[in-house]
């Protein structure tokens, strides 16, 4: 009976949406998640309030997790990976690392992304100075309800967020825009100011890409209501000032002058890398990767949920940097497409 089952790899927003859609069509979903909790990056990295809903990640994603876990047609394997996949569209057998075997007619790869590791941009101080953080760490700080310098616990007078860390940077082989960091950073600036009104937040940018409806809701609002200052500059390095603060060095490209500005906390707006497991996933599932290392789409317009292998679908940040909302939409689409193709297969055979 594998033709009534869809194997969903990855239990983040996209995978949970795929599984829910498979279930709602009356099909069975088997979710395989390598970590020991469902929810994906928003839960694993401890995001605070999500863009654009403003809802806490644990509440919003929690509902998605509950919807899948409560469905009798869903089976969840946590702390497990797919080790081997045999068969073809309509008749796959997957062997999991926990020893289980799953029969499924289709596979949805909702394997997401890996956060850029700021260690790969050493000149910007991450890993060297305690008060240099990533956006995910800052999200966690916001979640804790207190803004303080990790080094000595003082309330920061000034925080700066550096955009495009691990994005749009040929030097380190990241030639893509991670799409959501501008909006997330504007949102983070507002959250910091909300918790700590005496802290001034600066955002260092080369372009601001708060696309679509994020423009006024995040970019404008952070400027107009929360007095976030946007500085157009290229950053060279982050060093220590000697008096416990950090110095951000670079060039203000509008004023055409070098800058060395003291800050208390420096935040890296880290981008989205292809999932570090993608080479392995490519081998196990026999699918192609596009030139940046994300999963390759079958066809841009007529098979948007497909991969280079029939019967295997993908969605969300596995295809490239993606927002949570669009990952959910794509996950739902991939689940739907998998079910539709299985249905057609059964009709044809019957």
């Amino acid at each position, binding site marked *: 009976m594998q033709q009534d089952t869809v194997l969903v790899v990855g239990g983040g927003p996209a995978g949970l949406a795929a599984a829910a859609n498979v279930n709602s069509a009356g099909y069975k979903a088997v979710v395989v998640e390598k970590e020991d909790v469902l929810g994906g990056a928003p839960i694993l990295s401890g995001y605070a309030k999500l863009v654009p809903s403003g809802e806490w990640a644990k509440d919003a994603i929690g509902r998605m997790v509950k919807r899948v876990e409560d469905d009798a047609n869903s089976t969840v394997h946590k702390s497990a990976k797919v080790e081997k996949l045999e068969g073809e569209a309509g008749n796959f057998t997957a062997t999991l690392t926990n020893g289980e075997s799953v029969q499924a007619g289709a596979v949805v790869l909702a394997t997401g992304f890996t956060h850029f590791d700021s260690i790969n941009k050493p000149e910007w101080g991450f890993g060297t100075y305690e008060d240099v953080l990533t956006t995910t760490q800052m999200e966690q700080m916001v979640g804790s309800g207190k803004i303080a310098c990790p080094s000595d616990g003082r309330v920061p007078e000034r925080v700066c967020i550096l955009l495009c860390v691990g994005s749009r940077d040929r030097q380190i082989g990241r030639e893509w825009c991670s799409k959501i960091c501008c909006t997330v950073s504007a949102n983070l600036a507002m959250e910091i100011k909300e918790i700590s009104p005496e802290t001034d937040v600066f955002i260092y940018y080369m372009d601001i890409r708060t696309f679509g409806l994020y423009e006024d809701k995040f*970019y404008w609002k952070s*400027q107009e209501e929360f007095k976030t200052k946007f500085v157009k500059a290229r950053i060279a390095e982050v060093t220590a000032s000697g008096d416990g603060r950090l110095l951000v060095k670079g060039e203000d490209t509008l004023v*055409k002058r*070098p800058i060395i*500005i003291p800050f208390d906390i420096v935040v890296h707006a880290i981008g989205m890398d292809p999932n570090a497991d993608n080479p392995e996933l490519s081998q196990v599932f026999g699918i192609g990767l596009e030139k940046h290392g994300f999963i390759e789409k079958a066809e841009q317009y007529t098979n948007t949920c497909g991969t280079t292998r029939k019967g295997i679908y993908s969605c969300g940040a596995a295809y490239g940097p993606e927002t949570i909302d669009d990952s959910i939409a794509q996950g739902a689409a991939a689940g739907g497409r998998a079910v539709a193709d299985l249905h057609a297969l059964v009709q044809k055979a019957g």
Partner: protein
Amino acid sequence: MAIHEKALIEDERLQQHDELVVDGVDVSGHWNTMIAPRTVRDYDDDFETKIQTYTGAENVHRCWQCGSCTNSCTMYAQNVQFNPRYWIYLTRLGMKEELVKDKDIIWQCVSCNKCTNICPKDVKPEGVMKALAHWMEEEGITEKTPSSIFDEEFADQIYKTGRIEDGKVMQNFFKKTGQPLLQEWLKVFVFRMMKHLPVKHLMAMGFNTIHTPRTKSWGKTGDVLKSYVREQKEAAHG
């Protein structure tokens, strides 16, 4: 090493020495010219708020640097150094030194308001230009404008006497702005008045200019008024 962007070296940063020793090495002669660094080392966090206290500049924090103001600017068409977008950016970050460098052109805004009409974020750049010009005047960075001098003379007379004497306002205004007391138009004006011989009126004017009467029971009203105006100014601009 060749200097590629000579335009970025302002004269005031050139330091020439007749004799110069750097780290124990005598570099007098050919290497005697040094250029002071142009690094920005801090922002003045309060400056934007300060400028926002001037009428018209309240929305300066909304600017996202699109450049529509400069692009539409009447003055920019005359002089590309006249760049409202740039001054708004400097205001936002509190780069006062950079702003002061342009003190001799910021006031040239002709208030055509094309910038204000085109601004997608409703920053009202014209208001910002006026605010900056006023701030510079109040800080003594630029000289007082004739209109400020006129206003002061006008207010001073009110404080003192509770009234103004046209002739005296004019006389002192011309004096303070270094203009000849006997203006051509004034001659024509007086001459035409004489033709109608309003002797009584002319005598009254002449008398008042010398005598300076006060409004009845003006008492300390002027002092009170003066301190009220000062308080209002301080409340607005700190």
